[in-house]
C-alpha cells in the first residue's frame, strides 16, 4: 500500500510540474507571439480571443505572474483551456473531448497489443537462444530503428494505394454519422486497422529485444535451474519461473517508454488523418494555434500519467516485494 501511495504522490507532483511548465514555457520564450498571431489572422480574431491570448502568454501587464498563475489554475479546474483558432469559436476543451476517445481506442489497444505480442515473442526468443530464432533479432533491430510515421507512409503506399484493401485516411466512412450502430463501429474498426498495424509493428521490436535479453539473464539464475532440475514441465519453468521475473523490467520500462510511444503514435495519426488528438495537434501546429497545442500537451501528459499508474498497479500485483516494502 505504501508503495502505491508514494507512486500516487509522485504522479500528482508530475502533473503539477507539467501544468506549471505549460504555464511558464510561453512566458520564458522570446518574442511577442500574440502580435504575430494578430498579424497572421488579419483582424479575424475577436477581442475576446486576443484577451484570452494575452492572459495565456502572460502579456497582460496589469497583473503579476502569480495572479496569472492562479487564474490559469482556476481556468484549468473549470475545464477552460481557452479558445481554439483552428476550430474557432469552439473551446479547446470541446475539440479535445471529441478527439480523445479515438486516440484512446487506437493507441490504447495497439500499444498494449504491441507490448503483449513483443513480450511473448521475447520470451520465446530468449528461451530458445542460440537457435535459428536468433536470426530474427537483426530484423527486430531494424524495425525498432524505423520512425513510426515512415512505416505509416509505407503502409499507406502498399495497402492504401497500390493494393487498395484498407482506407488510407480518416477514422470512419464519410457517409456515416458517429453513433453506436453496428455499421459505424464496423467502419471505425476497418479504418483503424492500418494505423493500428503500423503502431504494433513499430513498437513490438523494442519489447522483443528488451524481453529477450532479460530472459537470457534470468534463465541462468539458480531458481530456474532448480525448477528445471525438479522436473517441472518446461512450459511451467519458462512462464512461471523465468518469464515472470524477466517481465518486471519490461513493465517498468513500459511505464517509462509510454511517453515516447505516445509521441510516435501521435505522428501516426497525423499520417493517417485519423480523427484523434494527434491529428488535432497537427492542425494546431499548421495554424500556430497555441491554446490548442498547449491543451493537447496537457491532456496527453495526464493520460500518460494515468497509464503509468495502471502499470504501477500491475507491477505491484506481479512483484510481491513492492507490496511488503512498508
Amino acid at each position: 500500500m505504501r508503495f502505491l501511495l508514494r507512486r500516487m504522490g509522485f504522479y500528482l507532483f508530475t502533473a503539477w510540474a507539467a501544468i506549471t511548465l505549460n504555464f511558464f514555457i510561453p512566458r520564458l520564450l522570446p518574442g511577442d507571439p500574440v502580435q504575430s498571431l494578430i498579424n497572421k489572422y488579419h483582424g479575424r480574431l475577436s477581442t475576446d480571443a486576443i484577451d484570452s491570448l494575452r492572459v495565456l502568454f502572460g502579456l497582460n501587464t496589469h497583473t503579476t505572474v502569480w495572479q496569472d498563475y492562479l487564474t490559469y489554475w482556476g481556468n484549468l479546474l473549470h475545464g477552460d483551456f481557452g479558445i481554439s483558432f483552428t476550430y474557432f469559436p469552439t473551446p479547446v476543451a470541446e475539440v479535445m473531448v471529441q478527439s480523445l476517445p479515438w486516440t484512446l481506442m487506437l493507441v490504447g489497444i495497439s500499444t498494449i497489443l504491441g507490448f503483449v505480442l513483443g513480450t511473448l515473442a521475447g520470451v520465446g526468443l530468449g528461451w530458445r537462444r542460440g537457435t535459428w530464432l536468433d536470426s530474427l533479432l537483426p530484423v527486430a533491430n531494424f524495425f525498432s530503428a524505423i520512425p513510426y510515421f515512415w512505416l505509416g507512409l509505407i503502409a499507406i503506399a502498399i495497402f492504401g494505394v497500390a493494393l487498395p484493401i484498407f482506407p488510407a485516411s480518416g477514422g470512419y466512412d464519410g457517409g456515416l454519422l458517429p453513433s453506436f450502430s453496428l455499421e459505424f463501429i464496423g467502419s471505425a474498426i476497418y479504418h483503424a486497422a492500418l494505423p493500428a498495424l503500423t503502431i504494433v509493428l513499430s513498437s513490438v521490436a523494442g519489447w522483443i529485444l528488451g524481453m529477450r535479453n532479460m530472459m537470457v539473464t534470468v534463465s541462468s539464475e539458480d531458481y530456474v535451474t532448480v525448477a528445471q532440475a525438479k522436473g517441472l514441465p518446461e512450459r511451467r519453468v519458462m512462464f512461471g519461473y523465468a518469464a515472470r521475473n524477466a517481465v518486471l523490467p519490461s513493465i517498468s520500462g513500459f511505464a517509462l517508454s509510454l511517453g515516447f510511444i505516445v509521441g510516435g503514435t501521435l505522428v501516426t495519426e497525423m499520417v493517417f488523418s485519423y480523427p484523434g488528438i494527434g491529428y488535432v495537434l497537427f492542425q494546431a501546429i499548421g495554424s500556430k494555434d497555441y491554446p490548442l497545442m498547449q491543451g493537447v500537451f496537457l491532456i496527453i501528459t495526464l493520460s500518460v500519467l494515468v497509464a503509468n499508474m495502471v502499470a504501477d498497479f500491475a507491477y505491484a500485483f506481479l512483484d510481491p516485494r513492492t507490496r511488503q516494502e512498508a
Partner: protein
Amino acid sequence: MSLVRNPKALAGMIILAFFVLIAIIGPWIAPYNPSKVGPDSLQPPSPAHWLGTTNTGQDILSQLIVGTQGVMVVGLVAGILATIISVIVGVTSGFLGGLGDEVLSLISNVFLVIPALPLIIIIAGLLPSAGGLTIALVIALTGWAWGARVLRAQTLSLRNRDFVEAARANGEPMWRIIFFEIMPNLTAVIASGFIGTVIFAILSEVTLAFIGVTSISTWNWGTVLFWAQSSQALVQGAWWWFVPAGLCIAAVGTSLTLINFGIDEFVNPRLRNTAASAGILRRKKIRARIGFTPVYRGEASAKKGMS
C-alpha cells in the same frame, strides 16, 4: 579495443562512418543543387537522377546527401549536451545520496514520464524560428533523463565498493574519487546512454521536420518526407520520393543500435557469450539449456565441452 572485434559493433561502426563521411563531404558531392527546380517533374529513378525527382523537378538524391549533415549535426550536438546533463545529474545524485539524491531523481523521473515529443512540439512551435541548433538544444533538454537514471543506479552500486572506500580512507578529495575512481567504471554506461540519446535526437528531429514544426528551408531527411507527404507523393505512387529517406533513417538508427548491442555485450558477458558461441554451439549440436551460460574459450576448451 575489443569493441572493434565484436561483429555487431563493427558493422554498426562501418555504416555510421559512411553516413558521417556523407555528412562532411555531402555539399561537394551532391550532383545537383537540392533546391534547384528542374524541368523533369516527378521522374522515377534514371541515370540522370539516381533517385528520381520531386514534382518540381528537384533531385532527391541531392536532397538526401545534403540533408545528411543536418541530421548528423543535430544528433551529435543533442547527444553531447544531453549526455553532459545526464552525467552531472546522475553521478551527483548517485554519489550524494540523501535529500540531494531525492530531489535530483524526482526531477529526472518527472522528465522521463512527461511525453517528450509533445513537449518539444510546444516549445519549438512557440519559438519564432526553430533552426537546427535550437532544436538540438530543446531535444537535449527533454532527452537527458533516461541516461541520468541509469547512471544514478550504476553510481549507487559503485559508491560503496571496496576500491572507493579505500580511496576515501586514503583521504582522496571528492572530485578525485568521482573523476578517477567512479567515472572510468561508468564509461560503457555513458557511451551507451550517449548513443541512445543520439538515436532519440535523430528520430525526434526527423519527426519534427516531417510534421512541419521546424524550419522547412534547410534540408534534412525529415524535410524530404515533409514535401513528399504534402505533395501527395503517396497517392501518385512516387515511392522513390519517400522510401530512400526512411531507409536512411533506419540505417543510421540500426547502426547506432548495433554499436549499443556491442557495448551491452561488452559489459554483460552472458549476452556476449550467447551471441559469440551461438554458431559454435549449433555446429557442435549443443542446445543451450537454461541454467548454463555457454562459454567458449577457443578450440582447446571447446573440445573438452561446454561448462
